[in-house]
């Protein structure tokens, strides 16, 4: 069954057609990827899905609900989490506090409860902390929970973002170029982590990635777009042998696959 269904999506900024008639589906429990050359409109698709851009036309159905043009926080509450291409951490806050942001929409204590520190508020705080520590443990940086986020190494800052997205308890997790800036070892760990998120937590994954090696290794289904249009769809082998895809990348693919 399709968890996410994008139907005839259009996005225009003035005269610029960023996305043209794009349709694709992501099956529940799968690891899917969205690839394409630079400027193909991948991140724009993500921004439409998560509510940051309002698509000009088309519908997005997520978990049996129409989320087209809904507010970002509503979409997150409905179970879609994302990471950002360039890190967007809350830099001056601790790692744990960063991850706690994900639990905001899953908790409810208001100002009065917080001032009085009612027993239900305390219990909620304790469960938030516990769950966020589990998320940090899952991505392997529980040791760093009390450090200020901006003082972490780049690779670990990326992990904070993943943990933060996991803390929203999503049904689907959208990774926007998670491997950017990671070294070889970190990329291998990322591949393991993506598989573990799907296998152990049952979270569906949609990935945008430049690193072809990584995409081919983890994805079960790949959608290729160029100039905002879908040019191919299939598993790794099918996509790699697709003439249109080879043309779109035109040698670039060989560099990256190496």
């Amino acid at each position, binding site marked *: 069954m399709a968890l996410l269904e994008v139907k005839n999506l259009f996005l225009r900024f003035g005269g610029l057609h960023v996305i043209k008639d794009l349709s694709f589906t992501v099956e529940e429990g799968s690891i899917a990827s969205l690839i394409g050359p630079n400027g193909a409109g991948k991140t724009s698709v993500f921004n439409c899905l*998560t509510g*940051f851009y309002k698509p000009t036309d088309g519908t997005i159905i997520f978990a049996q609900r129409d989320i087209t043009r809904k507010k970002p*926080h509503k979409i997150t509450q409905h179970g879609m989490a994302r990471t950002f291409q360039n890190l*967007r951490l*809350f830099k001056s806050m601790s790692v744990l506090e960063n991850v706690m*942001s994900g639990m*905001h929409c899953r908790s409810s204590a208001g100002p009065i409860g*917080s001032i009085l520190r009612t027993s239900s*508020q305390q219990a909620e705080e304790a469960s938030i902390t516990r769950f966020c520590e589990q998320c940090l443990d899952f991505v392997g940086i529980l040791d760093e929970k009390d450090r200020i986020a901006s003082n972490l190494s780049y690779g670990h800052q990326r992990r904070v973002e993943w943990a933060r997205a996991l803390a929203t308890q999503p049904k689907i997790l959208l990774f926007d170029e998670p491997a950017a800036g990671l070294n070889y070892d970190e990329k291998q760990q990322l591949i393991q982590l993506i598989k573990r998120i799907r296998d152990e937590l049952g979270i569906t994954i949609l990935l945008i990635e430049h690193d072809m090696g990584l995409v081919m290794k983890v994805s079960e289904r790949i959608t290729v777009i160029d100039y905002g249009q879908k040019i191919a769809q299939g598993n790794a082998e099918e996509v790699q042998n697709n003439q249109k895809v080879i043309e779109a990348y035109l040698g670039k693919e060989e560099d990256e696959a190496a």
Partner: protein
Amino acid sequence: MVNLLQTTSMDKGGQENPGGLSGWLQHQKNRLFILLVLAAIALLVPLISNNYGLEILTNVWFYVVLCLGLNIVVGYAGLLDLGYAAFFAVGAYTTGILTSEFGVNFWLTIPIAVCFSACSGCIIGGPTLRLRSDYLAIVTLGFGEIVRIIARNLEITGGASGLIGIERPSIFGFQLDQIVHFYYVFLILAIIAGFVSYRLQHSRMGRAWQYVREDEDAAEAMGINRVAVKLYAYVIGAIFGGVAGCFFAAKMTAISPETFMFQQSVMILLGVVLGGMGKIPGVIIGAFALVLFPEVFRDIGSMRMLVFAVVMLIIMLYRPEGIWPAKKS
């Protein structure tokens, strides 16, 4: 190269065993001890101080409440508010009008003032919080002036000459009319304000304010309704100002629109920025500096504001994050 290695290893050692004052302060017990000592000093001050000293310190506690209130808006939520005196005016006028014109008991006016200031927070915040910070600053500046001008022109607020004869509150038949009484009243208010700020800062709501301040888009992607969260900050900040206004009216027994000029908003903001936005001890120190500095330099007459300005510039140049140190680890 050897030197470099040595310094890094020393740094690491310092991190593991935090020494010195800041390390000592990290322990909850020590912090509580310091707080208790400071509270004891504050409680005993009236025994040794003359009325002039008490008047100034009462003023300090009053500004601590206002600065902590504005700190929620500016420090936690990162919304630049240039019209904070308006909320303070709403509280003061609510108490002033209700006690002097309608003979309502002072204590009953507080919940009403809380409602009014919260409503004014909603009225100004609702439509404007969608704006990004620079525009918000201009709108709040306008709002502050509008409130003052309304107070100046309405009959019920006493026009330009303001309200006089505001009832002094009494508690269990004990009339509060000496400066020492108000010293304790404002000290208690300041303690409550500090306590509420602390609890809020370390709660789900307090964290949400900081997320929105740090990165609005990321906060929204994490499922935080940024408009609702900002509105909360605005309304809670307004309530702080409103309550401070109630007690201000009762202490002065007379209020006039000139008390709530733009300059007042700037002074409160100055206290917050000077001490360190978002840091409770910093904001309290900021309020102290704000009130004490002009008093200490009273001897040099009109030059003191110039000296004040220069000191402020120096602090902002060398410590843009405020007097209180930022946390690092």
